[in-house]
């Protein structure tokens, strides 16, 4: 038999669900201390998530997509990026975005039905939340192409879900990343579900990482609940991207512990046991165990930090709640760089309607 090509997909896991290491720390993590700020960030994100859900439940927020359970993947991705890189998220990677400077009040504004949430004070070139699934992957490929053409030492990172990895735009992104050898990292966050459709119904592929083979990209499958593995996977992908070796597809195995969004009821379609099992592998507990074992963390610290997080986030929530609605003419702002002549009358009419007694 003549063989035209062979491939192998590596799996990364360092920190096991029980909080013990399966071997030495990888290059991405020089020492255990380095994990501490990221662990705190995970707690911050989880606090934010809880509060956002509560806001939605009390009618103060629109539909909200929670990130419960994804914290290690999200924070690890954000931590791996340089400020000048560009991030193209889907709609729940707050952990990554906070690390890049996006503010919780901006997240709330967006889900609160206000475009101004997308006007990040923070990473000015990052993409806003992206509702049409996986189109952000292809925009990120375009961003990466622009970096390459302008010889900028920057990397574009996009995230999508297991469902999103079925989308043709995802395939287009990996195809072009391969064709142009782009500094692009495609992160597939496999949380087991795309609303009600389980991972197994999306594709016949045994891993989602292997989709990268279709474009000749580097492929890696990672325990996405293991912050250490996430950091190491991202380090490798960034290094490849920066050294001109092209794009990567990384599959992060995690689990969506919450409903898809606050508009969803996951009990309709998935069993309790599965969720219970998933809680045993979630990212926070194992890292806490590890850091506690290393004497880097304790209950008192945790209590203090959670309290601190609550305060920090309440400031953000208040900023959101106090922000007045945009005036009606905001509909016409930013439609074009300059409002075309034709539209002045419509804008004036809209304003006039507001002014009626």
């Amino acid at each position: 038999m003549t063989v035209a090509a062979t491939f192998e997909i590596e799996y990364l896991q360092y920190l096991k669900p029980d909080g013990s290491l399966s071997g030495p720390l990888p290059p991405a993590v020089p020492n255990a201390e380095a994990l501490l700020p990221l662990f705190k960030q995970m707690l911050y994100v989880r606090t934010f998530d809880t509060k956002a859900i509560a806001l939605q439940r009390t009618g103060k927020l629109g539909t909200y997509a929670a990130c419960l359970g994804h914290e290690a993947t999200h924070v690890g991705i954000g931590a791996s990026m340089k400020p000048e890189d560009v991030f193209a998220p889907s709609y729940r990677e707050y952990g990554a975005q906070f690390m890049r400077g996006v503010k919780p009040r901006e997240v709330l504004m967006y889900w609160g039905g206000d475009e101004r949430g997308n006007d990040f004070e923070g990473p000015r070139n990052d993409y806003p939340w992206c509702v049409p699934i996986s189109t952000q992957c292809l925009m990120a490929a375009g961003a990466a192409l622009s970096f390459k053409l302008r010889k900028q030492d920057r990397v574009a990172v996009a995230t999508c879900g297991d469902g999103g990895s079925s989308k043709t735009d995802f395939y287009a992104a990996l195809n072009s990343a391969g064709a142009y050898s782009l500094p692009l990292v495609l992160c597939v966050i496999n949380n087991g579900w795309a609303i009600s459709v389980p991972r197994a119904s999306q594709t016949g592929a045994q891993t989602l990482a292997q989709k990268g083979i279709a474009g000749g990209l580097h492929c890696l499958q990672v325990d996405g609940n293991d912050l250490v593995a996430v950091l190491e996977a991202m380090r490798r992908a960034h290094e490849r991207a920066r050294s001109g070796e092209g794009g990567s597809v990384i599959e992060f195995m995690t689990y969506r512990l919450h409903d898809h969004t606050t508009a969803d009821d996951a009990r309709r379609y998935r069993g309790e046991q599965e969720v219970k099992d998933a809680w045993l592998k979630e990212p926070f507990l194992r890292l806490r165990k590890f850091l506690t074992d290393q004497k880097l963390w304790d209950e008192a610290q945790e209590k203090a930090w959670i309290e601190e997080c609550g305060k920090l986030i309440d400031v953000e929530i208040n900023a959101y709640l106090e922000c007045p609605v945009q005036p009606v003419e905001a509909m016409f702002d930013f439609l074009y760089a300059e409002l075309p002549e034709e539209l002045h009358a419509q804008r004036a009419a809209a304003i006039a309607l507001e002014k009626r007694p």
Partner: protein
Amino acid sequence: MSDAKPIALIEAITQALAYELRNDDSVVVLGEDVGINGGVFRATAGLSATFGTERILDTPLDETTIAGLTVGMASQGMRPVAEAQFDGFMYPMVDFIVCHAARMRYRTRGRLSCPMVLRVPWGGGIRAPEHHSEANESIFTNVPGLRVVMPSSPARAYGLLLAAIRDPDPVIYMEPKRIYRQYKELVPDDGEALPLDVCFVLRDGSDITLVTWGAQVKETLEAAEALAKDGISAEVIDVATLTPLDFATIAESIAKTGRCVIVHEAAKTAGFGAEIAARCAEECMFDLVAPVERVTGYDTHIPLFRLEMKYLPSVDKIVAAAKRATAHS
């Protein structure tokens, strides 16, 4: 009998799907989350349990895939009813709809055809996130070979969906999600389809013709009510089948009223209202005593939900336009 309970528009859709699934083996339903989850709006609730996963298919998360599989199945003799989860997600389907669904019969001189339905929950006003509120019927109305259908009541939703599924050609069936649960009415599950090429006159009047479709039928009827209080008698026409258009019904009404206001939710410029107004300019010139008016979304994107109601046509806006028209005589 379950027939005897009043049902909402979305339940009428479920009822029509179930009817055809029962009566025609070649009907299958496909889309994202249409299976065990019953659809994000619950339009397919219970169908998977009744008809099984070989009739009610969850698809991988890709609208191109949904459109392509649907055309493929339809051209091989099945009658697939596909769902785009929201209006804002159907753009990737345009290629298959325009290049293949609309042309299969024409291109092959009748050898193959494409008896499919694409269901698209449509329009704003439900406080949903971005891309969940679009009114994009105009993407399809300039495409020959398609039918674009838009129900606005439980009974019409049922009868038009049956007709759409049975029609031998591709039908884009746009569902006004804002009024999915607006009110309930008795809709006998009798399998009676409605015609796909007539407008519905929902209210008779003599002073002005109000032409609309979809969710705006609600505001338009309310506006007619308000106008009546001011002594203005408005006829209300629901253009439930946008293409092929039944303009005769509209022209007949204008011959009587001499005035026409068109109401729709999509942006004004080149929205489907333009076609109705154009026909007025071509065919009703000598009947019209007042300029035609369009009350529509502005020529901007529908904003996120904090502002969306200000974007949409409202009873006030319709009444004002009608009064401007009736000022002419």
